[in-house]
């Protein structure tokens, strides 16, 4: 197993430049459009408006309306057109504003993109890349805020990616386009503004494997996408309390990299899965089940899950934040998992009469 230990944005890179997730994404698109004439970008507002999140700003001017195409509000139609183009030999990058809207194109994605290779006996690969935002945290209310990537991770025939770092944002697109199968890229809306140093030597990303973003020995925080920064923050917090947390960034939600996840848990013996999806039937549920199936005898505590409250994501800021996984919740789950409080407490109780110093 060769997990690429890509560093989270930080000053450790020998050289590099400061950029944002949004710019990294744009750069990836620009590179794709430049290097392969078959690549074109299509979606609502991607052209004149510059993309609803500003990712494709300036690309229309640079590459012209043939290669950066605005589409009407018709997800099923333009995703279907993208699939057709892919079948015809093009390399379309289709942008759907949010994962909520992608459900309108679910028929195309599931019944065509994901199945044609199989149904044609291997004759019709669909090399399409579909990008969309996911996740909450920006007060866009329920219809723009859900995390449904787990649903897509359910579908065989798709590759589902979730870039969480600048490097992944910059370098996941090329291997995604090179994949002969449909690839879905989920960009968490809260990440676009994240800025940091993009290492100069960052190369193509290994989209087949999860990455260990931080090593630790006591508990594995398994997460992806928009929850990665929260997990890293939680790990910092835990470290100050003497708990060494390892943070695993899944990167690929389908296929899941069982080996990296399992290796980590086999070392730490405890797992907290952080997933912005709803708990019931979630990706977190899948990971938890796999850990029980494959690493039962490595587990020293029940697998913990930190997921979103099972409500439509609220609009009100406090309610929205309360509904989402937060570092505090991750810390609490990790502590439960490690049994830190219990262990320390039990020890203290025994010693208290001797030292006479109740905490």
């Amino acid at each position, binding site marked *: 197993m060769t997990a690429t230990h890509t560093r989270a944005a930080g000053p450790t890179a020998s050289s590099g430049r400061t950029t944002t997730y949004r710019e990294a994404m744009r750069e990836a698109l620009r590179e794709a459009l430049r290097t392969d004439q078959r690549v074109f970008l299509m979606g609502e507002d991607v052209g004149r408006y510059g993309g609803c999140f500003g990712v494709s700003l300036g690309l229309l001017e640079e590459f012209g309306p043939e290669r950066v195409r605005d589409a009407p509000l018709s997800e099923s139609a333009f995703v279907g057109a993208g699939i057709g183009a892919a079948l015809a030999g093009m390399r379309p990058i289709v942008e759907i504003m949010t994962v909520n809207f992608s459900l309108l194109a679910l028929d195309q994605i599931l019944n065509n993109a994901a199945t044609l290779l199989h149904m044609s006996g291997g004759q019709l690969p669909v090399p399409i890349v579909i990008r969309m935002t996911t996740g909450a945290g920006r007060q866009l209310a329920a219809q723009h805020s859900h995390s449904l990537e787990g649903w897509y991770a359910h579908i065989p025939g798709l590759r589902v990616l979730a870039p969480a770092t600048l490097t992944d944002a910059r370098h996941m697109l090329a291997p995604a386009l090179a994949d002969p199968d449909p690839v879905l890229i989920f960009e968490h809306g809260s990440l676009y503004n994240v800025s940091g140093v993009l290492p100069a030597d960052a190369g193509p990303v290994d989209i087949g494997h999860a990455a260990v973003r931080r090593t630790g*020995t*006591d508990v594995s925080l398994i997460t992806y996408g928009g929850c990665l920064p929260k997990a890293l923050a939680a790990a910092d917090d835990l470290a100050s309390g*003497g*708990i060494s947390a390892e943070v695993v960034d899944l990167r690929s939600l389908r296929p899941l990299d069982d080996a990296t996840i399992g290796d980590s848990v086999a*070392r*730490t*013996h405890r797992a907290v899965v952080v997933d912005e999806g709803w708990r019931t039937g979630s990706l977190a549920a899948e990971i938890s089940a796999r850990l029980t199936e494959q690493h*039962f*005898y*490595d*587990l*020293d*505590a029940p697998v913990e899950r930190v997921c979103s409250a099972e409500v439509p994501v609220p609009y009100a800021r406090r309610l929205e934040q309360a509904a989402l996984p937060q570092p505090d919740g991750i810390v609490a789950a990790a502590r*439960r998992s*490690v*049994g*830190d409080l*219990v*262990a*320390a407490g*039990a*020890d203290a109780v025994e010693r208290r009469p001797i030292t006479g110093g109740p905490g």
Partner: protein
Amino acid sequence: MTAFTMPSLGADMDEGVLQEWLVSPGDRVRKGDVMAVVETDKAAIEVECFEPGTVGRLLVSPGTRVPVGTPLAVIEGEAAHGVRAHAPGTDAAAGADALPPVPAGSQRRPREASTRAETGRRPAPRREPQKAVREPKAVREPAVTKAKAPDEPAVSGAPALGAGPLVRHLAVLRGVDLTTLHGTGPGGRITRGDVEHARPPLAPRVRATPYARRLAQELGIDLAVVRGTGEGGAVRAADVHAARTARTGGNEPERPQRPGRDGEQHPRGAVPAEDRPEERTEAMRRAIADLMSRSKREIPHYYLSTVVDLTAAEDWMRRINRGRPPAERLVPAALLLKAAATAAREVPRLNGYWQNGGYVPGSGVNLGVAVSLRQGGLLAPVIQRADTLTPDALMARLKDLVQRARRGRLRGSETAGATLTVTSLGDQGVETVFGVIHPPQVALVGFGAVVERPWATGGMLGIRPVVTATLAADHRATDGAVGARYLTAVDRLLQKPEEL
């Protein structure tokens, strides 16, 4: 001779399916023995017989649906009435003609059964032990009617006496050897409950995480003695490591123990290769240390001692052993264990556990026997239901267990679940051993060496073989009087070795 008929098991029942026969022709049955299982529309019900006798022909085969009142079998009663054993025809219908449709007595019992059925509490579990199981009463048999009754099923041996057909049937189904059971029914009969409870009691399961369990196994640490610090007292990997480092830490400077950490941070964490004999011995030492510290810390012990004259026992043993090859001879230990176990049955307050601030009686006398190992350390393998074994059987079990304990070949079920432990240091030459109770048990019995001492009895002084029997008991569970009763019982039992 009477007919065993399809009973009416409810006001609305007019026919039923004979599901299963629990007796076969030739079986002796007593009033209240269960003969057959009948399936009504609501439940499967065990039907009893109301007349003692011998089961004659079975007139209806399993799976047949017959109307209420149909004779199902012939029961041959007293010899006087037995002449027409096979007379009343060869089919059920003929039987129905020849016999009163419903014996007078059958109204009452089936009604009881039907009440059960109608409550509908248990839809179909016909094997379900029902509270109302009637023990075969210790009815005096009427003069035996058939000298040449067909052979009983192959269960033999004195202890099986009084096991009715149902009980024997159940024993076969469950693979229980009736000869190993101790009957709790009237007159020492083996009841259905005895068979159902014959399975050795499971050791209380230690709550532990899968990883801790694996680790404990790899490190040779007994989970039962590891203090769990996890949720609900669950043993976690850190606890196993703590138990282990506490052990190795004996020589090391006091180590700030942070049980929350484990795994890779310990330079020697989780390396099964360390499972060397010395390591194991140390682990055992540590385990014993923990357990015994806990015992002395938690249990207020009181001690009693008495010297038992073994003249009768030795005489009896000598007589028994005379005709035996050396390998089969009894040794005093077998008698002492048997006496200890039987006395525990008589004084059940000493046979059980102290748990959650209260006494919990053990189910059956499961005797732990302390066995010292050559490389040091102790094991206490368990002889299940020791009170029900003959001295010979006990001896065989003991030999087997000691051998396997010393080779490290005990099965899990043999290492846990003791309700009372016996330690015998007789072979080490000491006269008296005051033991430390094995928590959560409430007592420990000790025997010293059998020695010859001047002994006064009946106004005469003689030289007699004696043994010092001691009792260490948990003062929370019992007081000295109970302990005294126990030791007195041991003494009394050893005076009549032939009855052991």
